[in-house]
């Protein structure tokens, strides 16, 4: 299946303030694409727009043959796009297991629930140990694992990750990125927003640098690493 | 003066003049309508004043009832005249208002609303259960020998409504109004701007309480009878909120427009359809329609219309 995510001249924002201006990007099947940029450049807004939490003001947005533009968020999950939001956003008063089961709420994923659960446990053995614990009592790293695991439970074809390393100790950042690497090797497309440019570029094959809601630089990982602009701003 | 401002001033003066003449017409029907419209104006202005500070009151019947009882008891037991009893009523209302504001200091939104509702219900139960003061469920009559006739009472209601409007307008020009509006958007924000919300909260409810109690006191003098169910009737609260919503909340003229409309509407439905159920049903429908379709009320509709007529050209010019 040709599940290309394609954003074409997207304009989006919040009441009055336009954040994304004429943004275009693509994610091809099996690719890991990273999005870099300073605070306020529109990285999170891009992901929220794809996930359907924010309705764009203009532009085109498709996934494979499907038009995503007018779909509510729950339909977008059904189409196979799943977002791991910034700040994890686990359900604190639900158990780890309940959080994971919620990940496979949509009809498409519900039938494959048991298999998905085993895969998540294999990826994050820590979660298996804590199935009955309230998610709010987990450490930050464990919550991030839960958030990623929960997104995988929906059997996505495209995973959107928003700042998975935010607020984590370096050791945990490694663990999380290792896991993302494993997920990528299974062939899942990933769109990764990350402050930690070095870690992001180590996983990605391609990337975009956003500035003021527009694509400032785009290219392969190598090209980005060599770009003086990227070097100065993110790797320096 | 711009023509629009002049027209507004003239209209205001005209309405004021007409209201002041009405009590002297001497017709019981005119008096009754005047009292109902003007006391609803007072209630609506009062409710709107509290809402302006973000305080959603579901307890205006408490102030109304307290004012009625204060007027009744001070007249019957102490021989207070109409104006004196009204001052006592207002004192009672402002005391209750400031007390309520102080006690509910940290509550806002829906929780404040529920607290005011409970306050009003408590007063109803207390009034029912203390017949030695209130006559209990049988109620009490105002001593007939004290009643001054309907012209002074009607004039009192008119003057009261004008005074409340004047107070509300004067407040809108001061720092008080700015503080209240800051509290409405968020008490946290107002704290950031160096405004301590509590005094404003107390002040605001003290004034709103005094107004609503004044209306209650005046109605006691108009009707001459009181029992706890009449005094603390939830319907008073409903009227107090529906008039501003229909007219336009957070505005000066909205409550007035709404009050006139509500009284006219409920009279017309009463005459046409008889049973009071219909008039209350229509009030309910009006409430729902206003909230869903025109949350800014008639004044809001009018402003939109006026803005559109002023020309979209100027709007676009200002856009760039």
């Amino acid at each position, binding site marked *: 299946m040709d599940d290309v995510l394609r954003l074409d001249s997207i304009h989006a924002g919040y009441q009055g303030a336009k954040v994304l201006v004429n943004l275009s990007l693509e994610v091809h099947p099996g690719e890991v694409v990273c999005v870099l940029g300073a605070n306020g450049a529109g990285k999170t807004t891009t992901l929220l727009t794809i996930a359907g939490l924010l309705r764009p003001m203009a532009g085109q947005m498709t996934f494979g043959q499907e038009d995503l533009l007018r779909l509510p968020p729950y339909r977008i999950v059904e189409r196979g796009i799943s977002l791991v939001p910034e700040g994890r956003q686990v359900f604190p008063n639900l158990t780890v297991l309940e959080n994971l089961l919620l990940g496979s709420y*949509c009809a498409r994923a519900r039938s494959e629930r048991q298999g998905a659960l085993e895969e998540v446990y294999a990826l994050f053995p820590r979660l298996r140990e804590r199935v009955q614990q309230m998610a709010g009592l987990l450490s930050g790293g464990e919550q991030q694992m839960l958030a990623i695991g929960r997104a995988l439970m929906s059997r996505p074809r495209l995973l959107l990750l928003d700042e998975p390393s935010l607020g984590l100790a370096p050791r945990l950042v490694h663990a999380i990125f290792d896991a993302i690497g494993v997920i990528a090797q299974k062939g899942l497309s990933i769109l990764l927003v990350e402050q930690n440019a070095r870690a992001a570029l180590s996983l990605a094959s391609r990337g975009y640098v956003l500035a003021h809601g527009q694509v400032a630089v785009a290219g392969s990982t190598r090209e980005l690493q060599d770009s003086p602009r990227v070097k100065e701003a993110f790797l320096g | 003066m711009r023509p629009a401002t002049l027209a507004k001033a003239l209209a205001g003066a005209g309405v004021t003049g007409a209201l002041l003449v009405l009590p002297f017409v001497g017709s019981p029907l005119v008096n009754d309508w005047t009292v109902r419209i003007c006391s609803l104006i007072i209630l609506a202005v009062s409710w709107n004043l509290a809402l302006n500070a973000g305080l959603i009151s579901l307890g205006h019947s408490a102030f109304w009832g307290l004012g009625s009882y204060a007027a009744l008891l001070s007249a019957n037991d102490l021989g207070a005249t109409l104006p004196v009893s009204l001052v006592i009523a207002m004192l009672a209302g402002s005391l209750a208002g400031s007390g309520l504001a102080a006690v509910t200091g940290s509550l806002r939104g829906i929780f404040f609303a529920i607290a005011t509702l409970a306050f009003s219900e408590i007063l109803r139960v207390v009034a029912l259960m203390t017949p030695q003061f209130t006559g209990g469920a049988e109620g009490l009559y105002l001593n007939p020998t004290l009643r001054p006739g309907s012209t002074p009472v009607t004039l009192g209601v008119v003057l009261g409504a004008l005074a409340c409007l004047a107070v509300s307008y004067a407040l809108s020009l001061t720092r008080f109004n700015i503080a209240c509006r800051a509290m409405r958007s968020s008490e946290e924000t107002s704290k950031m701007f160096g405004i301590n919300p509590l005094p404003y909260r107390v002040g605001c409810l003290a004034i709103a309480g005094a107004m609503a109690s004044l209306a209650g006191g005046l109605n006691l003098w108009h009707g001459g009878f009181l029992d706890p169910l009449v005094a603390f009737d939830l319907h008073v609260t409903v009227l107090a909120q529906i008039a501003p919503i229909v007219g336009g909340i957070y505005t000066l003229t909205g409550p007035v427009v709404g009050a006139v409309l509500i009284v006219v509407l409920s009279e017309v439905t009463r005459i046409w359809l008889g049973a009071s159920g219909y008039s209350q049903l229509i009030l309910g429908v009006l409430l729902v329609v206003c909230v869903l379709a025109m949350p800014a009320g008639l004044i809001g509709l009018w402003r939109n219309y006026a803005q559109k007529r002023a020309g979209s050209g100027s709007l676009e010019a200002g856009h760039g």
Partner: protein
Amino acid sequence: MGIYLQLLIDGILLGGLYTLVATGISLSYGVIRVINFAHGEFIMLGAYAAFWAVTLSGLDPLLMLPAIIVGGGLFGYALQRLFIQRILNAPHVNQILLTFGFSLILQNIAAILWTGDLRSAPSVVSYSVTELGPLMVPHSRLVAFTVAVVLVIGMLAWLKWSELGRATRAVAQNHRAALLMGINIHLIYAICFGISASLGAAAGSLMSFLVTISPWMGFPLVVKSFAVVALGGLGSVLGTIVGGFVLGLSETAVSFFIPGGSGWAEGVSFVFLIAILVFRPRGIFGLAVEEDAR
């Protein structure tokens, strides 16, 4: 001793009904964040439905219960989809006024259609009593209590174990994250409002053979439920259950121990409500302070 036991029984039987009513309010507020002042009218409509069933067909109000539950649920679902849905992000004052408006409309439709006369709908259990030594347990109250308990437990089980119930808890905790799970939150809102309404209607049909029915019977019950919810702590289902029994027992005690107490008992819930809101807004009613005016 016997009299205290009797008070305990009376209080618990009453508390069960309060819990049922309050659970409905708690569910709709906890998930949708809109306080429904028209909940009492669901109770009133449920009571009238039972009354008319008895009057027109001679059926026992208890037999009508399933139909009333379904009808109440559909009514609530429609109300949410058609109206409440539109004011989810409106300022608090609009939300309050909208449900207040519904309350007025439903009360007065009932008053116009069925007059303000007080009515009651006798059931087969209305006139029998079990005597345990000096203790009296009226069957009507016992049956109402049992049904209430079963319904509340059923609702809790649904929340705990069903797919939709789990999704409902997720929506209540973080509705944005729930959207990302592929949950259609508007559907969840409508289902919750429907369940809330059906619990209210069920409570009403149980009350139809316990108390007199009138178009205005609902509103005081709503205010009492606020007290129950506040007592137990918002968002705590267990708390709501405890709160219901605390209120039932307190009212029973007040009407027994204070002369002329049945009148004062009506005020107990309001005193509780103010006292909790004022003295323990953070502790028991945790959300009162956290939640800002929208």
